[in-house]
């Protein structure tokens, strides 16, 4: 058995009496792509929010490579190597694409805070090269000097992915990376994610699109009403009657 990257241990979270997550246990292994599927309102996004420190669980622990994540500040978690792509792209709309990608590169190089106020951006050749490289990877290199706010939604998502990739995270969390994308864009994103996988990056992915799940995931966990009801290889999960009832049967 390979190393555990992310380990969720009995996570409980409720909002004003409404239970969003109850006794969630999850093990994500090194180098795998782990998909979390489930019907709307199953608590998938809450789960990711707990992982990156946006929400604190009521009880339970999240550990990352053996280190405790619960109770840490979001930037600390990110510095440890956990990056996240959001459902609605979180980018810097007023900046150019290049700046959008350079900014996380500084975070990678300089840490959570470094007063780097005198040397100009123009002198940061290595950071710029790296950023251009990543933009090429996500297919946005030709729009490099455009303002990010003017991108289409699919492109914004790809940009955000680029911003996460330049951090070279050890764990990448993706919240519906292809929602709202055309079939063509979806396929491009799948190819991109496959390329990353070949580099050995561990990923947790929330997805509605079964096509995406089955082309990417090594393992699937099914979340329904705040509980993990099934888990395993994609083929096995697909055949699981409980899952069919809770999710696949209803939705398809």
């Amino acid at each position: 058995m390979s190393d555990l990257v992310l380990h969720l241990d009995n996570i409980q979270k409720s909002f004003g009496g409404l239970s969003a997550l109850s006794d969630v246990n999850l093990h994500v292994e090194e180098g795998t792509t782990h998909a979390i599927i489930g019907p709307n309102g199953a608590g998938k996004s809450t789960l990711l929010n707990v992982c990156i420190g946006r929400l604190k669980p009521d009880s339970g622990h999240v550990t990352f490579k053996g280190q405790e994540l619960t109770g840490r500040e979001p930037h600390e978690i990110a510095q440890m190597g956990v990056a996240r792509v959001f459902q609605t792209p979180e980018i810097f709309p007023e900046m150019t694409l290049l700046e959008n990608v350079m900014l996380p590169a500084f975070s990678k190089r300089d840490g959570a805070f470094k007063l780097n106020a005198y040397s100009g951006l123009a002198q940061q050749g290595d950071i710029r090269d790296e950023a251009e490289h990543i933009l090429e990877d996500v297919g946005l290199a030709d729009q490099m000097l455009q303002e990010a706010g003017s991108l289409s939604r699919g492109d914004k998502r790809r940009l955000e992915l680029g911003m996460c990739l330049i951090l070279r995270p050890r764990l990448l969390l993706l919240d519906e990376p292809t929602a709202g994308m055309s079939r063509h864009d979806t396929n491009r994103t799948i190819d991109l994610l496959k390329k990353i996988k070949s580099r050995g990056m561990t990923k947790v992915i929330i997805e509605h699109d079964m096509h995406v799940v089955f082309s990417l995931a090594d393992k699937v966990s099914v979340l329904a009403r705040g509980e993990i009801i099934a888990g395993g290889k994609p083929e096995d999960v697909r055949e699981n009657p409980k899952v069919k009832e809770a999710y696949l049967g209803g939705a398809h």
Partner: protein
Amino acid sequence: MKLGPLTDTTRFVLFAVIILAMPLWLEPLGGNYPDLLQRFAIYGIFAIGFNILFGLTGYLSFGHAAFLGVGSYAAVWSFKLLTMNALPAIVFGVFFAGILAAAIGFLSLRRTGIYFSILTLAFAQMSYNLAYSVLTPITNGETGLQLSQQDPRIIDSVFIEAGSGLPSTNLFGLKMSGYPGFYFCAVLLIICFYISMRIFRSPFGLMLRGIKSNQNRMRYTGLNTRPYMLTAFVISGMYAGLAGSLLAITDPLAGAERMQWTASGEVVLMTILGGVGTLAGPMLGAGLIKYFENIFSAFNNNVLMEIFSFLPNAVAEIIVPIVGLFVGSGWHLTLGILFMVIVIYLPGGIVEGLSRLAKFAAGERKSSKIAGGNTSPQDQPGE
């Protein structure tokens, strides 16, 4: 970072030349008085510093007057206790403003948006009220802190015999009033502009813009926004402290009214008028406001009657009182209206207006060559 038509070096040289040549080109505009020139430079520094905070991070402080005031008090105390030399005064002014900014910033930056504005406002009002009341031994309350014959001036007393009158501020013997005073302020202004330019173009500036644009993304990218914000806040407080100490250097007294929230409002106005987040905007705004304040408040009804003397008497007698509302002591009315007009129609300030004009003019010439910065149709998602 938008690449303008100018490189930064040309920008900087241009700025320096324009500032240093102010006595020349302000002569025909009726603005060539040393006092006024000094104020241009000083408030330019204040506004440029404010812009580092508001322009880059979007945090609207309503309490920067407190730092201006502290800078002044510290400078006057340096004159009283140590020496009439301007340099220690500046050092103390900047230092104490920085300390106060660090304290206020540390607390205020725990909140964002309007809560941040209210917190800074509350701290500045506290400083102002305290300066008027309990801190009278330090601030001399309502009268304001002034020089006096009895001041120890430890360093000066070693080197120079005390004269009969009050000594004047100097820079190693060079008197800091009149034009030398202006050039001293102008050189500091140019240095300040240079530093602000470096900050705007640096990774640190990029981080600050990132905070303005999307603070969440910053955090999930692994950046701790708090120290970045605090640094920006302290830097801009130090700029205000420098401006305050220069006010005291050119006119050695300090009053609490310098700390009132209307003074904070004024620097906001300068920055907005010129153009928030632009390099030259705040200087432009500060200059315009101080210029018009000076010109407009000098008008009284007699002057107006003279101006409108070409009109028939009856018409002039109607026009003069109306115009009189907006000039002289009514100058603030003009300022208020100007403020509203700018915010309503030109939130980007004069600099944006100018660049729009320039774009318009350029567009006229080569309207065929508009390659849009916007999305082209095929980029739309296929939803």
